């Protein structure tokens, strides 16, 4: 711990004077007393635990190594009760507003008529699906499972970086991290009151059940996965197992008379709610991509007739479009008449000529993101880029300004990570998971993603990111 040299940004553990923040003091003592050798021993035990559990993800584009253990860090990240309260309230507010927004734009479009949002922004988004217009969605809930990306900037404030409203992943790493940490540092837990995250699967099942349109007591819920070659297959299997429901692939389902069935050893069984981990495009070859072999022909029609619930609904990606993101504060104000509790990161809309010219003039200082991409692909980090990359990006922006947004380069907060023999600062973010059913449920915790490469600001697992266990404290001691 002595060799730890914080960089000049908000440090989760140390205050600017180099003193451990009060909620990190016990952790500092614990690691100090543990000693380097014992720490290495625990790390190896934790490595084995992850490997043997098969906590893996799939990397695309690597033929030889399709399955990898998700990189993790063994120093937990601690969030105080007070910080969590604000996060929780902010997330509740946000998901409520975004659901109202989706319902509005797929029906009357009041927000467009009232000129809060430019119509072209919505209708030009490739995730806005005309097929969904006028569809009555079960319980009027569009987004029931969200993983919102938060970052803490150097002012110590949490900002929303991204709403993931389609098929957010990573919750299994939250669960696996905690499981391994409990085995690795049992005594450290006893020095804190850490809130449990184990109820996530139970909460998910209750949320999914509450969305069923049918009136029988025990609706049949399934998890729909693209299969074992999907990068998040481990997670799909884990959630199905913990909820005690079937993990189905497209080929296990069929639709007859707008009713969805699964093929079982005792014949066909009706399915009421589908937690689908398949993108919109692939869900039904009749309605969307005809070349999709993963989906279920006729599923969309069954959904439109209210015979089955899909979570999340289809076409929700329009609300987490990176250009639309800039308007979320207005969306919250419009539907809820409230100020946003969690602020947005400042975002430039590049279809606006004035903003675009400002961005292009300062391209070396800003981050430019493709609006349709996720997972850290299609992104330029100005200060870390070459002249050539900047020029290419500028040309792409001029050609299709709607496809990009720009944000200031954020100084993500840092936390200590054990890399090699020593503790070093690395940039982190936070992805809590929000469930929206008959009520809103947020499990206290989330996935803290870490940019494991020195100096890197990209935390995505596909780009060399890892994760750490996230502890939300039950109570703040004075």
């Amino acid at each position, binding site marked *: 711990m002595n060799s730890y040299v914080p960089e000049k940004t908000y440090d989760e553990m140390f205050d600017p004077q180099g003193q451990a923040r009060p909620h990190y003091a016990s952790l500092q003592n614990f690691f100090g007393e543990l000693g380097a050798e014992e720490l290495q021993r625990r790390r190896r035990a934790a490595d084995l635990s992850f490997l043997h559990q098969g906590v893996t993800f799939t990397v695309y584009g690597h033929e030889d190594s399709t399955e990898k253990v998700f990189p993790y860090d063994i120093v937990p990240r601690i969030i105080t009760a007070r910080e969590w309260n604000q996060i929780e309230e902010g997330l509740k507010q946000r998901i409520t507003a975004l659901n109202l927004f989706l319902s509005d734009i797929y029906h009357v479009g009041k927000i467009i008529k009232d000129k809060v949002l430019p119509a072209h922004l919505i209708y030009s988004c490739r995730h806005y699906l005309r097929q969904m217009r006028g569809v009555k969605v079960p319980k009027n809930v569009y987004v029931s499972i969200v993983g919102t990306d938060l970052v803490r900037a150097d002012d110590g404030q949490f900002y929303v970086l991204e709403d993931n409203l389609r098929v957010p992943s990573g919750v299994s790493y939250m669960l696996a991290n905690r499981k391994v940490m409990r085995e690795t540092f049992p005594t450290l837990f006893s020095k804190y009151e850490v809130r449990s995250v184990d109820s996530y699967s139970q909460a998910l099942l209750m949320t999914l059940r509450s969305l069923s349109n049918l009136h029988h007591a025990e609706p049949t819920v399934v998890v729909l996965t693209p299969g074992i070659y999907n990068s998040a297959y481990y997670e799909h*299997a884990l959630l199905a197992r913990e909820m005690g429901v079937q993990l189905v692939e497209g080929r296990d389902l069929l639709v007859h008379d707008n009713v969805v069935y699964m093929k079982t050893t005792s014949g066909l069984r009706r399915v009421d709610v589908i937690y689908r981990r398949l993108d919109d495009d692939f869900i039904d070859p009749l309605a969307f991509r005809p070349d999709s072999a993963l989906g279920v022909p006729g599923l969309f029609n069954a959904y439109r007739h209210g015979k089955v619930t899909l979570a999340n609904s289809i076409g929700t990606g329009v609300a987490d479009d990176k250009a639309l993101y800039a308007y979320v504060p207005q969306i919250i104000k419009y539907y809820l008449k409230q100020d946003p509790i969690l602020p947005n990161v400042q975002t430039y809309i590049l279809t606006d000529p004035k903003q675009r010219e400002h961005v292009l003039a300062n391209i070396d200082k800003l981050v430019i993101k493709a609006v349709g991409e996720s997972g850290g692909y299609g992104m330029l980090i100005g200060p870390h880029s070459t002249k050539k990359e900047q020029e290419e990006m500028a040309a792409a922006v001029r050609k299709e300004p709607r496809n990009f947004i720009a944000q200031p380069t954020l100084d993500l907060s840092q936390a200590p990570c054990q890399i090699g023999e020593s503790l070093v600062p690395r940039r982190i973010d936070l992805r809590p998971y929000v469930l929206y059913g008959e009520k809103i449920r947020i499990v206290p915790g989330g996935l803290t993603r870490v940019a494991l490469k020195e100096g890197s600001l990209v935390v995505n697992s596909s780009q060399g990111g890892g994760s750490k266990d996230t502890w939300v404290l039950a109570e703040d001691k004075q």
Partner: protein
Amino acid sequence: MNNTMLSRVADHLYWFGRYVERAEHTARVLNVQAHLALEESTERRKRKLADMLKALRQPDLEVKDFEDAAYQMALDPQNFASVRSCVRMARENARQVRERISSEMWTQINRIHLSVSSSEQAELFQNRPNQFYYEVLTELHLVSGLTDSTVSRDQAWHFVQVGRWLERSGLLVTLLETYLQESWEKNYLDWLGLLKCATAFEAFRKTLGVELNPIKLIDFLMLNDRFPHALHFSLLQLRRALSELASETENRKSKELDRLVGKMHHDLEYARAEEILGGDLLEFFNRYRQDLMAVHSMVYGLYISWEVEF
């Protein structure tokens, strides 16, 4: 609702059971035969090598000697019949149904997979093959033990059992067929080897004494209904698993399958070793193997790849 099982999942569980059994059998036969061949003449060693490959259903495998055969059948990732490949397939099937098996089972099969693919185990195989087989077999037994002790006796378990006992029956048939054929003169060591390939040596001695001859071997390895690696016992287990499945799934079309397995059982229950040996042994094994294949097809038709009708 928890009684529901996807047909695809049943398929994977069934093959999981089969591959675990196959891996275990292959490792044991290699260990026993390679060990026994050490004290043989060159000529007999050659014959034993050919027999071993036949018993493992790889009569055409090109091998230089016992060591080479053992490597190809134990660790060669290119050979789909090797222990390593069987373990990989068992693990692949388990991976597809992780949510339906216990975490203990998954962790264990994943561990074996990582271990037989590691350079440490390859080294162990080179230097101390005995220890290698001992470890692999122990780890595989642990899979079966965990399957028995951590899973409810529901459909998932029964499908694994169907796979396991069907596979064991088939492997036993090939094993017996190979070693009971009078193609060359067999001695005490050969019979001993056959018993050990079925982990039956000690149990045999306790039941039938020290003298070894084909009649006694048939009596024990085929007709005994109490020993887990005997044909009769395996069929009883298969029959029980199938009947549990029929009632769990409330399948009304399982009559035909029930009839077939009942007939197979009957044939073993009332047979006498002298009659089997006196009759056409090859014909007996051939028919039995065809019956097993028919069981496999019927299980598929009933539970796994059935036709949808509205």
